[in-house]
């Protein structure tokens, strides 16, 4: 019961943040809504029992990647969007239509897989110890490839930012 309530709270915050991201006119407020979404996702991971992943989500995604987004928006001085004259009729029919469409899609997906159960609380790997073991045994290849990918990204950043030697 408490878990359902907590799930609903985090899910509502997540969806509200995502909708706010689209509705805001200024890109910085959209970026901050995305930070809220990341935070709500971390809450959902915590509910699933993946506490290490939740903390890493906050540290890396909300605390570093989104800071990068915010930096870029600040430095580029992107101003408020101009609103073109949208159609009120489109808004009147579009928003409820989208809600109905997504509910229909979700219902079809759930019905098409009759053996799917609710995800139990705590069903993901929680402690860092277990995730470490998984990373270095079962998922070793993706781990190494990801590290090579990050190395390529770092080298790309260095090459792009290098001063041309005159």
């Amino acid at each position: 019961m408490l878990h359902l309530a907590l799930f609903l709270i985090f899910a509502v915050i997540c969806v509200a943040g995502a909708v706010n991201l689209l509705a805001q006119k200024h890109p910085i407020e959209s970026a901050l809504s995305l930070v809220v979404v990341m935070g709500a996702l971390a809450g959902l991971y915590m509910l699933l029992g993946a506490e290490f992943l939740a903390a890493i989500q906050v540290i890396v995604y909300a605390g570093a990647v989104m800071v990068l987004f915010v930096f870029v928006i600040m430095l580029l001085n992107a101003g408020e969007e101009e609103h073109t004259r949208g159609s009120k009729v489109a808004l009147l029919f579009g928003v409820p239509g989208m809600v109905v469409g997504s509910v229909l899609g979700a219902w079809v997906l759930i019905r098409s897989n009759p053996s799917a159960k609710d995800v139990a609380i705590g069903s993901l790997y929680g402690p860092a110890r277990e995730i470490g073991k998984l990373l270095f045994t079962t998922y070793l290849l993706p781990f190494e490839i990801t590290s090579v990918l990050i190395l390529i990204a770092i080298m790309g950043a260095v090459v792009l930012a290098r001063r041309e030697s005159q």
Partner: protein
Amino acid sequence: MPTGNLSVVTFVIVSVIKIVLFLFVLLTGVAYTVWLERKVVGHIQNRWGPTRVGPFGLLQPLADGLKFIFKEDLTPPYVHKFLYVLAPMLSLMTALISISLIPVGGNITIAGITTPIQITDTNISLLIILGVTSIGVYGVALAGWSSNSKYSMLGSLRASAQMISYEVALGLSLIGVLMLTGSFSLRAIVEHQAGGFWHWNVFGGFQFVAFFIYLCAAYAETNRIPFDLPEAETELVAGYHTEYSSMKFAMFFMAEYANMVTVACLASILFLGGYNGPTFSGFLPPILSSLMPVIWFLARVVFFLFVYIWVRGTLPRFRYDQLMAFSWKFLLPLSLANVMITGLVVALRA
């Protein structure tokens, strides 16, 4: 039962009391850290510091608080209002959250209720503190941008770039301690160092390199001298809080000192043995002997605050490129080397 052996209602009441007590002590500590800084820096510079308001100037923080409350709260017309108001709140919130995870003492039994002297302990406490530090960067970045002024913008960009660079070294320096302890829980880290000062992580765990890196990275995270270029008055007027007045400025100010206190608490927990120390349980009644660890913890925290202030009064500040080079070219490789060597020792010992 997640509430231990207490009923839910008792647990909630005890937790609320602890939260109020911790926040009160933290905020008073922040105010008197400002007093301590003014006195110590004053004496380093061969002058007295505050002496007039109360004995030894001890009521000076009260006078400062009243001043901030009565000052005119000015909101310049060209700022981005929502973020301008949000930024100091974000800074102060993230500065105050970390105190909820810090173990100040062992268990204490009052009126038959046994509870740890800590608001809460989770098995990812250290990661939560790192996460909260990462969110604190937003307070600084948004303050500068929303103020819509050159000095603020530059100051906040420098401050946030500095903070995210030193977060890497900070996180890596903690890994050595984590490998020795095997848990992210702060209470487990403190209890791993029980039994005399040779067990502390800085001596017995040989984490003195990590200790040095942690202190440097923490000084940079809290924007203190020698890393306080973002706030340097001679450089940037006042950096990211140029356009703030009265209560909002006071919130940034409190957030900076609360961050200092958090860093001091963490350094004493991770490297100096936390609240371990003789409890004199043979001589003292049980309540007093459960409070002895609190006194040992406070002694360490005050020591770190004193070192912070001592460094502030002594060293000149880094230039910005020296600051960034120090983080990426010196602290990062050093902390990686520390992680590798500690990992090797732990693996060979097991």
